């Protein structure tokens, strides 16, 4: 696991110096929330229905933008080949990159939550921690898939176009379920009330994390 944390630390140091991923992800997420807030006149009845979906649209599109750059940065100067000629198990490389990507996406999501509350006039009250849990579970799933597909798409010229095309159909179940869970939490209901959605998210996370970790080796080989 030391090697995994070495990859995570390397990515965090790089991002702190360049702020390339964070700035683009944050800008897009903020833009989405602002546009939806001002473009539609949401009534108080409509906000609980629409707001969770808007939140996850912002998270997902911003996340995909960050994921598409994640492996592109590794490809610049072929620095990833230095990683691949080392005796590090490919699934551990996946784990390291996945954790890095998740950290960057989580940071953007944590910053977006108070802005979301501000724009949609929400009182989170006791729902903050359940909301964070739902965000964690949903993000884990799409970052796992996104890390794999980001590696696949990084070798192509059309990676920014290809990644969303590859990833969005796969993550529909976890996104829809995360939206349902978020709606349940924001309306003050316990998570267990959206039990079926919770099962889908947790199952998706486990299954796709394992699949992506195993398949990652074949994606990296030429």
């Amino acid at each position, binding site marked *: 696991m030391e090697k995994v944390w*070495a990859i995570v630390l390397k990515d965090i140091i790089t991002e702190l110096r360049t702020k390339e991923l964070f700035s683009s992800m944050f800008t897009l997420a903020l833009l989405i929330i602002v546009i939806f807030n001002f473009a539609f006149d949401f009534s108080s009845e409509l906000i609980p229905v629409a707001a969770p979906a808007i939140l996850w649209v912002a998270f997902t599109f911003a996340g995909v933008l960050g994921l598409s750059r994640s492996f592109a940065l590794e490809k610049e100067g072929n620095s990833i*080949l230095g990683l691949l000629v080392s005796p590090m198990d490919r699934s551990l490389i996946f784990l390291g990159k996945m954790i890095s990507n998740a950290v960057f996406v989580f940071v953007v999501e944590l910053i977006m939550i108070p802005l979301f509350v501000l724009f949609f006039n929400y009182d989170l009250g006791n729902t903050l921690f359940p909301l964070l849990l739902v965000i964690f579970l949903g993000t884990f799933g799409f970052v796992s898939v996104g890390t794999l597909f980001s590696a696949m798409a990084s070798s192509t010229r059309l990676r920014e176009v290809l990644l969303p095309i590859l990833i969005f159909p796969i993550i529909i179940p976890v996104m829809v379920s995360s939206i349902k869970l978020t709606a349940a939490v924001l309306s003050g209901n316990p998570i267990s009330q959206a039990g079926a959605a919770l099962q889908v998210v947790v199952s998706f996370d486990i299954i796709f994390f394992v699949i992506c970790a195993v398949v990652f080796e074949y994606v990296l*080989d030429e």
Partner: protein
Amino acid sequence: MQAVELDIIVESVAKSYGNFQALQGVDLRVKRGEFLTVFGTNGAGKTTLIKLLSTLTKPTSGKITLANHDIKKEPDKVRSLIGVISHDPYLYENLSAIENLKFFASLYGIPQAEEKAIEMIKQVGLESRMHDLVRTLSRGMKQRLAVARAIVHDPNILLLDEPYTGLDQHGSRIFGEILKLLKSQTRTILMTTHKIEEGLGISDSVAILSGGRIVYECDPRGVEIERFKEIYFEKVRV
């Protein structure tokens, strides 16, 4: 009679990318401690050969053994025994020299990675630039740092893919001195290049790769550069 130990064995290796045959029927044997240079023009298959040896890709057919380990069956073991230096330095541009070496040292499980990284930086003469970001270093300095990265885990086998690419006269001279030092440490070295002057003088054996095949091999000691160039241009198929 003592059996010669072979560190690199390439047996009837072929590599194809779709319909394109990059290598076909390649046989090579490199003795322990030997320095082999493989010459070839652009597109001859030199980089493909290095990628196969460094486990970045698998052969379509044939067998490759490094230090008695089959690269298909024991790729992680092979990776722990080799160091790779390419025309790309395989470094992270937004990390400093010392951060890069600490990172790679940790990937090889080297204890006290920072001390090892400092030792390697001193060895390649980059002590004064160790805290500078790699993107601020010159091409020659990056290549020296790449050498440090490749030998941080003290590998027995070094694979060099056109390492002189982009180096000016001064950089080439310094890199040549580093290569001589690496050779004196009795590592097994396989280098590919299209520049005859770089490889001929330092090598124990040479081969010429053309159209994905080994078309010539010899012991270059005593062979004049001009004579070898004649042979090279005869053998190379454009």
